[in-house]
């Protein structure tokens, strides 16, 4: 037997928003009660895929995000399973109080799936880049907050959301991410994922930053540092057991998010560690500022969201651990 020919592994990339659009159209067949709302961005959010097949179950409300959330609430009260989509900043910023009063307060069965989260929106600039949505949704009682890291996770989350009774926020992204989960991936509420074992430091990421954490772990390995990598895609409820267990094993932690370093994953992890197992933590995220125009990779570099930035933060966290 001769050796098998070597094949070069090209990482498969999938866009979380495209995968949302595809699975939604598929689930539309399985669940006749699914209805979809959009506010004039159905091409970008990918709900147009559903609209094309299920014309009577798709409601474009025009450029009116506040009305969209209220209409979705009414459809939920009428027994439907509404998915409401627009860009993340308009969904959670423009219509925050509608989500609070009418959807979260009444715990209505509305699924908000917002695209264009974070700065990798790119050229459209700061007005369209949501670096606040996770904080805005996380603070709402009854709200589940999810950020998929790849296509399989997106499909699993959306499928799960259909059968879950209550409000859910899912953030998708404009740019495609590498596929890291199996196609058979199943989403479990309140569960994070251990992607890589390590002893020296924990790197906890969400969305795009999960991939940056994995790359950072490679960089650290070259320096002899063993990093444990977590995908905390379920931001709320957070897998605090996994966070505490990781803190206990590695003694320090870095969070990484394509979001304000205030109010999102970094804050959520910090809240858990402060109460249950305080260890040095550094937060990689956007520091009290808005986004701007540029190519996604330029912006990631500018805002300090690269694997190098995460690796640097990891070494700093380890130094603090050594001092304490």
């Amino acid at each position, binding site marked *: 037997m001769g050796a098998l020919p070597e094949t070069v592994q090209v990482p498969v990339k999938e866009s979380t928003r495209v995968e949302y659009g595809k699975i939604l159209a598929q689930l539309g067949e399985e669940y006749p009660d699914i209805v979809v709302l959009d506010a004039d961005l159905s091409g970008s959010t990918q709900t147009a895929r559903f609209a094309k097949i299920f014309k009577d179950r798709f*409601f474009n409300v025009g450029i*009116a995000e506040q009305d969209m959330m209220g209409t979705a*609430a*009414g459809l939920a*009260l*009428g027994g439907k399973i509404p998915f409401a989509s627009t860009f993340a900043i308009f969904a959670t910023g423009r219509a925050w109080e509608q989500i609070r*009063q*009418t959807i979260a307060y009444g715990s209505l069965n509305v699924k908000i799936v917002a695209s264009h989260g974070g700065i990798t929106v790119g050229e459209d600039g700061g007005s369209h880049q949501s670096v606040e949505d996770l904080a805005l949704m996380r603070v709402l009682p009854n709200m589940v907050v999810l950020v998929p890291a790849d296509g399989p996770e997106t499909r699993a989350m959306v499928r799960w959301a259909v059968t879950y009774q209550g409000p859910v926020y899912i953030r998708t992204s404009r740019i495609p991410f590498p596929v890291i989960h199996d196609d058979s991936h199943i989403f479990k509420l309140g569960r994070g994922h251990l992607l890589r074992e390590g002893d020296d430091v924990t790197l906890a990421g969400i969305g795009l930053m999960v991939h940056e954490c994995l790359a950072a772990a490679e960089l650290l390995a070259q320096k002899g540092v063993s990093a444990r990598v977590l995908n905390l895609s379920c931001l709320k409820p957070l897998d605090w057991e996994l966070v505490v267990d990781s803190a206990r094993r590695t003694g320090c932690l870095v969070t990484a998010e394509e979001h304000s370093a205030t109010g999102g994953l970094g804050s959520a992890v910090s809240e858990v560690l402060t109460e249950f197992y305080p260890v040095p933590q550094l937060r990689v995220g956007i520091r009290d500022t808005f986004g701007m125009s540029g190519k996604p990779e330029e912006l990631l570099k500018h805002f300090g969201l690269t694997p190098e930035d995460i690796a640097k933060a990891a070494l700093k966290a380890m130094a603090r651990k050594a001092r304490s």
Partner: protein
Amino acid sequence: MYPISDPNQLKEIARQIRLDIVEMLYRAGSGHVGGSLSATDVLVALFFSHMHLEPGNACYPERDFFVLSKGHAAPALYAILARLGYFPREELSTLRRFGSHLQGHPDSKCTPGVEVATGSLGQGLSVANGLALALKLNRRGQRVYALLGDGEIQEGQIWEAAMTASHYSLDNLTAILDRNRLQIDGRTKEVMSVEPLAAKWEAFGWHTAQVDGHSIPDILEALKACGGIIGRPSIIIAHTTKGKGVSIFEDNVKFHGVTPTTEEYQQAVRELQLR
């Protein structure tokens, strides 16, 4: 017997509801008396005569839906729901108290018969639209009713929802506008003009009717007429007097959100008992 069609009987129910409202708010020590009393006759017409309900059964699947978009009129809604048997009348005295089923503004999780949590103004019409869309998708003949305040329609979302209802031809939706001409800071025409009202709603594609909002027979006639409109939503502009039924409250901006003193309360009860 339910529903009630005798206008005199409905008028008597409205008088008793007004007594309940005054009593509740006096005991609670806070709450919105003016906008509750202005909306009483409209709500009595809807709940005791016009809407398809099974009194006391909040889960009756064939029911018509009601959204109190002007959520601060909660006392009027609670008094009506109690009389219809959705919860014991004794609970009315717990309004706004810690642990009460009767929250300061409607909370669907706490109060049987309340469909939607409201209180933050301008949101109820969108929810009513969603309900109306769901009923149409399910090919159900039930209707949706929403009560709006005249100050409330200063919220931009109302006009987003006005477009949506018209765009989707929601002829199973009737909104009622409690046109009492006052809001917290003063007369609507001084705070932020809302006229020309009928022309605005007509321009948005709505069937528009205007009635004396304290004449129950007129309200009922308008509600019935709206049921026959095909292809577009309806709104009834109900011309009302804020604080209706008690001379010292009537058209007095002070009584938007201030509850009566003991003397004012006693006078209010006397007047309502004599009517």
